[in-house]
């Protein structure tokens, strides 16, 4: 799956997209950053409500390609700047984490 599919197929708003052709092969849903740190797979997208700069740091450290902010959460400017610098994409959606997880699961073919 390409990050661009999240925009085109799910209609999620791309706030930061350093490389829309970057791929992802997995997803992880969590609001606890230590949990993300310990368990999120490489090349995944993170489904969360944690819209702040530290989420980008965690994403970049564990190799998460994109952060999907649920429940209309927005990304503050410093978070977007950090994401551009680290090459991590950020999407926002009105979906909650469960719905977003199901939709991303659908994109990944129900794996």
């Amino acid at each position, binding site marked *: 799956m390409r990050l661009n599919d999240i925009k085109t197929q799910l209609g999620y708003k791309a706030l930061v997209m350093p490389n829309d052709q970057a791929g992802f092969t997995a997803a992880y849903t969590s609001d606890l950053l230590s949990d993300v740190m310990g368990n999120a797979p490489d090349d995944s997208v993170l489904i*969360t409500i944690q819209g702040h700069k530290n989420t980008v740091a965690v994403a970049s450290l564990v190799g998460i390609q994109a952060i999907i902010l649920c429940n209309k959460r927005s990304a503050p400017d410093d978070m977007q700047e950090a994401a551009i610098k680290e090459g991590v994409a950020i999407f926002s959606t009105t979906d909650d984490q469960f719905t977003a997880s199901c939709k991303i699961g659908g994109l990944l073919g129900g794996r």
Partner: protein
Amino acid sequence: MYNQGMQTIPINTYNSPTVILELIYRLKVKDVMCSALITAGRDATLREIQGLMRHKSITGVPISEGKRLLGIVSMDDIIQALDRGYIEERAEQYMSSKLIVLEEDMPVSFAINYFDRYPFHRFPVLNKHKELVGMVTSRDISTRLLVEINREIDQIERESTYARTGESGDVQIRTFTVYKHDFENAGLASTEIKKRLKQDKRDPREIRRAAIASYELEINLVVHADGGVITAVFEDDAITITAKDTGPGIPSVDDALTEGFSTANEWIRSLGFGAGMGLPNVRRVSDEFSIASSMSEGTEVFSKILFKKITTDSKG
């Protein structure tokens, strides 16, 4: 018209440190200029401009029509006018109209260079459409540079690098100072450590383990300690990460190592920290792990990750 005297701004593009060079190329004229302009129209008399200078404590007034710059009247022009008796006349006749201007998107290095080259104390700044948008004095530049240099030094102090030669080849040690509740910079040490390991072409799984250990230790210092220091020792076959703080100490190390146990407060949890997985995560990814804590001396956590032999010869 070279100014042979002392440099107005003692920073230049040929022998300044890299940090300063980056700064004067990164900062644009529009970042340092004063955009709250005090201007006079073409009908103003030199007397009126003299009054303006006195009331506003300024030494140069641009004469403009709308946003178009026509000229500048300087303190020196006023002195000449008083001396020669034409102070009541219109400024337009006597203003300097052959002007050297700066453009707002030029790097500050240009402006510094202009102050060295020309005898003027201020330069008008125009935008792409040749409209007057600001004025720059050497003081504007110095002030802004000091602010930026302070910030850069702060950054450098947080991160210091030194190397020593150990018995088993080169050992590099990097230390990072971490401040209490500084969520803004949390992750800086781990990001640097990760970058370094990537450069060294380490196994991605080993890099990830080192990233996890260093990030969790860094966050612990931000969240729980009164600040502290992260030390990373890079060796050929391992990385050792040590987090040392000066307090307040962990009452029960066993509790702290239990998954799910956390003493973090509500607002820290709301940021996604304090899940009670920090130290357990560090221990899980480490090949060697130890923790010592006392209520009088603080806490020291030690994590070592061993590298498998790398086949690509990056070290020679």
